[in-house]
C-alpha cells in the first residue's frame, strides 16, 4: 500500500517542532507499524536525511517503550494494542497518517517522537513497592491469597507504563497509571502494612507532575493492556481513607 505520513520532527527539547510530510510507498500489509517506520527511516538514510527518532524495544507489546499518537489516538486505531503490535493491515491504501509524540506537560519531548517519561519512576519511588529486604521472606505459601484477589491484582499489575493513558487524557492526568500500580499492591495481603503511606506518597507525587482526573475515560480506551478505570475509583477511596486516617493521627 502507499501512504502519506505527516510526522512530527523536533530536533531537541527546546527546538521548535514541525510536521514533515513523507511518502511511504510499497508498504506490506503484514508489516507492523514500527516496521513501516523502519523502512521509511532506511529510505530517509538513503536520501541522506536524518531518520525519525521513535522509542521502541521489545516489539511485542510488553516493555512499554513504544507509543505515538496516530491520527490523534494514542497507539492508533486498534483497541488493546501497543504501537509495536499494530499492523498495517488496519490501514488502507492511500491513507494519510498523522504521527505525533505523546503530548502532555508531564512528558517533555526529547526528540521527534520520543518523550521523557521519568515522572513515572518518581511516582514509584514515592511508595510503589512493598518493603521487604532480600532474604527476609517467609515461605510463600504461608500467606494464602484467594485466586480472585490474585487475579484482580494481576489485572492491575499488567500495566506496561507506556504513558498512553496520560497522552489520551485531555487533562494530561496519570490516574490510570498510578491507580494500577497502587491497586496491584494495595489489593494483596502483603501490601496492607504500607497501604496508606503508599497511597498518599504516590498520589502526592503524581499531582506534582500530571493533571487532574475529570472522568473522561479516554485513558481506559487507549490503554493497550485494557486497565480498568475501576482502579481509579479504588485509588480515590484509598486516598480518602488514608487522608482521613492521617488527619486523625
Amino acid at each position, binding site marked *: 500500500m502507499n501512504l502519506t505520513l505527516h510526522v512530527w520532527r523536533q530536533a*531537541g527539547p527546546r527546538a521548535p517542532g514541525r510536521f514533515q510530510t513523507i511518502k511511504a510507498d510499497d508498504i*506490506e500489509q*503484514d*508489516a*507492523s507499524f*514500527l*516496521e513501516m517506520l*523502519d*523502512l521509511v527511516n*532506511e529510505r530517509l538514510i*538513503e536520501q*541522506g536525511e*536524518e*531518520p525519525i*527518532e521513535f522509542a*521502541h*524495544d*521489545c*516489539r*511485542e*507489546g510488553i516493555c512499554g*517503550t513504544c507509543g505515538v499518537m496516530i491520527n490523534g489516538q494514542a497507539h492508533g486505531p486498534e483497541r*488493546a*494494542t501497543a504501537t509495536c*503490535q499494530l499492523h498495517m493491515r488496519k490501514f488502507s491504501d492511500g491513507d494519510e497518517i498523522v504521527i505525533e509524540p505523546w503530548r502532555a506537560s508531564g512528558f517533555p519531548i526529547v526528540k521527534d517522537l*520520543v518523550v*521523557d*517519561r*521519568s515522572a*513515572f*519512576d518518581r511516582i*514509584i*519511588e514515592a511508595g*510503589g*513497592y*512493598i518493603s*521487604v*529486604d*532480600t*532474604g*527476609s*521472606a*517467609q*515461605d*510463600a*505459601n504461608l500467606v*494464602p*491469597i*484467594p*485466586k480472585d484477589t490474585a*487475579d484482580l*491484582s*494481576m489485572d492491575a*499489575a499488567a500495566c*506496561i*507504563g507506556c504513558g498512553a493513558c496520560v497522552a489520551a487524557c485531555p487533562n494530561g492526568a496519570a490516574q490510570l497509571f498510578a491507580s494500577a500500580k497502587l491497586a*496491584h*499492591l494495595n489489593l*494483596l495481603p*502483603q501490601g496492607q502494612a504500607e497501604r496508606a503511606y503508599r497511597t498518599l506518597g504516590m498520589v502526592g507525587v503524581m499531582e506534582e507532575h500530571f493533571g487532574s482526573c475529570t472522568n473522561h475515560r479516554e485513558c481506559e480506551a487507549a490503554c493497550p493492556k485494557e486497565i480498568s478505570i475501576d482502579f481509579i475509583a479504588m485509588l480515590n477511596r484509598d486516598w480518602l481513607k488514608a487522608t482521613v486516617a492521617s488527619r486523625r493521627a
Partner: protein
Amino acid sequence: MTETMPPPMTTPESPTAAPAGSAASSVLDSKVPDGPIENMWTQHKFDMRLVAPHNKRRFDIIVIGTGLAGASAAATLGELGYNVTVFTFHDTPRRAHSIAAQGGINAAKNYHGDGDSIFRLFYDTVKGGDFRSREANVHRLAEVSNNIIDQCAAQGVPFAREYGGMLANRSFGGAQVSRTFYARGQTGQQLLLGAYQALMRQSAAGSVTIHTGMEMLDVVVVDGRAAGVVVRDLTTGEVTSHSAHAVVLATGGYSNVFYLSTNAMACNVTAAWRAHRKGAFFANPCYTQIHPTCIPASDEFQSKLTLMSESLRNDGRIWVPANPDDARSAREIPEEERHYYLEERYPAFGNLVPRDVASRNAKERVDSGHGIGPLRNGVFLDFSSAFERLGTEVVDDRYSNLFEMYERITGEDVHDRPMRIYPAPHYTMGGLWVDYHLMTTVPGLYCIGEANFSDHGANRLGASALMQGLADGYFVLPYTIGDELADHLGEPPVDTGHRAFTQAEQEVTDRTARWLSIQGTRSVDWFHRELGKIMWEHCGMARDRAGLEKAISEIPALREEFEKDVRVLGSADSLNSSLEKVQRVADFFELGELMCRDALHREESCGGHFRTEHQTEEGEAKRDDDNFAYAAAWEWGGSPGAPNLHAESLEFAYVKLTQRSYK
C-alpha cells in the same frame, strides 16, 4: 601445564586441540569449594570474608543493566548498605528485556508433592544442559530457587493461585514434575516489576543512584583490576567516567547477532564485549538456544520474531501433515493423516522435550518438505484436543494473552485453526566466563544473569532464565562480592582523572566520531541483516565445518565493508539511534566471528550446539566427553581473528554422564 591453545581454524586439518582428560586450566580458577555439594554453598557462605555493615557504605559498586539480574543485585546491594550506582540505556529500569519472558520461573518447592527436590532440579538442569555446566553452580542455583519464590511473593508478585489461595504450578519442557511458578503469560514482567520496585525503594532511600538513558561503552582496568566504566549519555552525547570498587555487568544475551531473534531491538553484546577486550574471557559463545515456539517470519523486512511461550506445549500438540503436499486446511486433515512427530519419537516426554530437541525436530520436518503456512516455514501447534478435554474456558484462562498476541500479529484465531510455530534464536547460554563468585577473569569485574556463561551448560531449560537471573542478583552476588572487596577496605576508588580513564574516554569519543565520519552508502540495519544471514545460515540451529569456515571468511570481509561504507547520519550530541546501533553492530561482528570459531573448534554436538558431523543414528546430538567436557573460555588476542583458548574442565561427580534421552 597451561591449556592455552592457538585458535585451531588456521589449520583446519589438524586435530582439534582439546585438553584430553586434563585438569583445569592453570589460568582459570573456578574457585569451587571442596566438600559435598549439598553443603557446599552453606559452608562457603560461612567461609567467605564479610564486609561489616558499617564498612559497606565505604564501597562503591557500579551495576550495568536493570533486568532481573541487575535490578535484583542493585536493590539487594543497596539494602545491604553499599553505595550503588546503576546505569541503563533504557529510559526507565523497568524496560529491560527480562520483561518479555512469558512462561514462568522454576523452583524446587515440591508444593504438589510430585517428587520434586533440590537435587532433582539440579539433576534436570545439568542433564538439560547436556553436561556442559559446572555442577557446583547449578546445585547452588537449585538451592536458592526456593528463596526466590518466597522473596517475590513477599514483594507482591501476583503469582497464579489455586482457589484455596496456594501457589499454582505448571510443567515445562525437560522436567517430569510441575515446578514452574507463573503470573499469567507475563511472569518476566511481574518478576521484573518486583525487582524494579525494590530498586526504586533503594533509589528513594538514597543507597542506589540510577542513571537512565546511559550506555556503558568501556570498562576501565587499572593495575589488573576493574576500576570503573565509561558511559555515554544517549540524549546529550556526553561521555563520562565513573569509578568504583567493583563493577557488575548484568547486560543480557547476544541473540541479536542473528539480526532476527526474539530479543528486544536494543539487546546487544557491547558491555560484555568491551569487557572481553579488556581481559574478561568469553566462554562458550557458540552455545545459543533456538526457541521452538515462535511465530514464523512473514517477509524479509521483519524486524524481530515473536516468541509464544513454551508453556503452550503443555496443552498444545505439535504436528505436520503426513503428506507434505496436503492442500487441505488443518481442520480438514483427519487424525490418522497427521504426524505428531514429537509424541511418536519421544513417548515419555512427548511435546515437552527440551527446547533444542523440539527445535531440531521442527527444522527436520520443515527441511523435509513438511512445513506448513504460506511460506511453508512452520509446524502446527494445535489446541483442539485441549479445548475438548478441558473446555475452552480453562484453556483460555491459561493462555488468553498469548492467543490474543498471536491473533494480533497473524490475524488468525487459534480457536479456528492451529497456531503456526517455528524456532528462532532466543537465549544465549554462552557469555563472560565467571568463577563460583560470579567474578570474571578481571578481578573486581562481575557478570550475572544471561550475560555470564555459568549455569545452563549447552542448553537452558524453560523457566530457568528467570531463576538464574534472580538467583545471581538476589542470593549469590550480594554474598560473594564481599569476599574480594574485603581486601580493599579503606582504599579509595581510582580517581577518574587517572590516565586509564581519560584514555578510555578519549577512545570512546573518537570511536563515536569515526562512525559519523564514514558517510558511506548503506544503513546500519543493512549490515546487521547481512551479518545475521551469515550467522543464521552457518552458525544457527545446525552447523558443519564447511559452513563455519565459510562464515569465518565472510564475516571479516563484511566487517571491512561495514567499516568503510556504513552511513550514520546526524550528530553525536543529541539522541541518535543509528549511532547507538552502529557501535552495537560493530561488536556483533567481532562476537559473531568468535562464535563461529568456537563452534568450529567444538567437534561434538551438545545441547544448543549441533554439529551435523556429530549425531547419533537417530539424529540426536552426540557428545564427545573424552575430549570436550570443558568450558571453552576465549581470551581476546588483540584482533577478532586471534583469540586464545583456555579450558575449564568439567567434572561430573553427582550427575552421571549419559547420552541425553527423552524417549
